[in-house]
């Protein structure tokens, strides 16, 4: 492959990606690229763009085709061999419900966002990289739908994931995150998704969580996960390149970029709380705790990255210390919320058993026994007495992240964190200083938020009662929601296992 007569990789890449663009003559360049200046970012020389992967389109198609062949061989084999009966426990299927309704639709949003950004950046190198990423993201949602459709034949709650994504109360959290990114200018989108999300945060989802899928016997999900993540490596490289490029192009770019990094780090941190809960509570066999994953992928890897970017004057994202402190709380606070609202979720919840509680105590020595274990033990006791606790109140939501106001004050886990501000005579509420700052920077944007609870009260969600709203969400009441114990999912799982024991004896 490396014969001396051939061009080197660098030269091949240059030949195949330079000279693709031209100065337009029928229309002025500023009319052809109308969106790459209003954000205030100054670019002096687009040709300084470096793509370190130097992947040309022909190699891209070759490798992507190979990845797809391997992935589909696994999916086919999983289906043919009834792989769903070999997962660690029926509870595991619930992470896939969250994945398909909450994460896969964001792959599609990312696909559209990168298609738009690729169209609207003036530099050819950046456009090629965005085009590849846009196609990758489309591949990701397709492979995820394909993989999880097999589980949909057996488990409840994922029959109408796309409608649920647009309507369900807690799915407005990921939806609004990507809506926010996609309604930003192209450079902010690149910092939001390319840098803050891909580089700093997606490892937490696609590495330890997917390793968890492997550990729980879900060979099809780990395969799409790692197949997607092999594209993510390229995306992360694009993310780091874009930030270096912007910071090198003009010193005026630094404060703009810093503000975006601060904003999107905080928004990403809030969004990933759902993955924290998936890892600590929903994987029957656990790989590592959320806190351990946060330490590896944010404290250690993020720390190295920001140490590197310090030479441009870029600082660690604002409130990163608070985010790190919250890594000891967020999974517990989220699972507690879903436990109380299990009737309004499209997946099942359960109380951790004693072995699981002990694991959490061991992994969270500073917080679990003190703040959360007693809560689960109390709920366990109540359930035993026939008084399973449900919370029927409609919760107040944060205007920015749209998460119910369930998080606690930094340093005071017994007090709910609550911030508010006024804008144009209206009062707005926030879960944190991070979300409050984001609002204050762009209030005109966030006053338009589609907040699920407000929408229910305004009569826009199917009716005034919980069953009517859940019907509008597309849930099958009594099948998709409530506890795992007693669910049709559990009944089916137990039947499969009874059959296995019978076959063995």
């Amino acid at each position, binding site marked *: 492959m*490396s014969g001396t007569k051939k061009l080197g990789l660098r030269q091949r890449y240059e030949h195949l990606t330079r000279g693709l663009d031209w100065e337009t003559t029928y229309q002025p360049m500023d009319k052809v690229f109308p969106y790459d200046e209003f954000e205030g970012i100054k670019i002096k020389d687009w040709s300084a763009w470096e793509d370190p992967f130097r992947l040309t389109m022909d190699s891209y198609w070759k490798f992507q085709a190979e990845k797809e062949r391997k992935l589909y061989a696994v999916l086919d084999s999983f289906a043919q061999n009834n792989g769903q009966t070999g997962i660690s426990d029926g509870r595991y299927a619930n992470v896939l419900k969250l994945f398909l309704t909450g994460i896969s639709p964001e792959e599609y949003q990312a696909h559209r966002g990168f298609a738009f950004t690729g169209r609207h950046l003036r530099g050819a190198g950046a456009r090629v990289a965005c085009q590849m990423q846009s196609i990758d993201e489309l591949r990701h949602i397709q492979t995820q739908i394909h993989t999880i459709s097999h589980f949909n034949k057996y488990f409840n709650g994922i029959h109408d994931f796309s409608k649920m994504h647009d309507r369900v109360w807690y799915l407005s959290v990921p939806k609004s995150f990507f809506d926010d990114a996609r309604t930003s200018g192209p450079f902010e989108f690149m910092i939001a998704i390319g840098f803050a999300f891909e580089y700093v945060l997606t490892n937490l989802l696609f590495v330890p969580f997917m390793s968890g899928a492997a550990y729980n016997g879900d060979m099809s999900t780990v395969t799409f996960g790692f197949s997607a993540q092999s594209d993510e*490596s390229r995306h992360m490289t694009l993310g780091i390149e874009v930030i270096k490029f912007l910071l090198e192009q003009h010193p005026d770019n630094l404060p703009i970029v810093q503000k975006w990094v601060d904003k999107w780090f905080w928004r990403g941190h809030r969004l990933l709380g759902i993955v924290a809960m998936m890892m600590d509570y929903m994987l029957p066999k656990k790989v590592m705790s959320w806190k351990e994953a946060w330490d590896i992928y944010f404290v250690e890897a993020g720390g*190295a990255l920001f140490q590197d970017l310090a030479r441009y004057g870029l600082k660690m994202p604002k409130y990163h210390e608070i985010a790190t402190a919250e890594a000891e709380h967020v999974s517990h606070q989220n699972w507690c919320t879903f436990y109380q609202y299990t009737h309004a979720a499209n997946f099942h919840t359960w109380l951790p058993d004693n072995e699981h509680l002990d694991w959490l105590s061991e992994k969270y020595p500073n917080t679990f026994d003190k703040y959360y274990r007693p809560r689960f033990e109390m709920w366990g006791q109540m359930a035993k007495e026939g008084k399973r606790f449900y919370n029927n109140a409609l919760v107040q939501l944060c205007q920015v992240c749209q998460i119910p106001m369930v998080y606690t004050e930094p340093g005071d886990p017994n007090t709910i964190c609550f911030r508010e501000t006024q804008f144009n005579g209206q009062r707005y509420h926030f879960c944190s200083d991070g979300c409050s700052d984001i609002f204050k920077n762009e209030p005109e944007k966030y006053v338009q938020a589609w907040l699920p609870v407000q929408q229910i009260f305004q009569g826009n969600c199917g009716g005034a009662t919980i069953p009517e709203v859940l019907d509008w969400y597309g849930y099958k009441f009594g099948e998709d929601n409530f506890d795992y114990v007693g669910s049709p999912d559990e009944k089916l799982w137990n039947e499969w296992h009874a059959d296995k024991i019978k076959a063995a004896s």
Partner: protein
Amino acid sequence: MAQLASITLMHNDDARPVIESIIADNPGVKILNMPGAVKLDCDGRITVNRASVEERLGRPWNLQEIHLVLISMAGNLDEDDDTFTLSWRH
């Protein structure tokens, strides 16, 4: 604080010669085994050498084939026909 250059690969047969080459060529590499994946960390810099992988594989190997088994990485990437290096040094 140590700046770890890092590469995470699938733990499968295609990746095995790559993993072995990295371990052989990067003294002091730390290995984190996870189900299905292996994370290799080195302070400051980590390199994959094409020649090293070819020696173990017994056939010519295009460095870009690493895309088929790559899960994640950390560091600034420098890639040419012979080496694939992630580093935090300039």
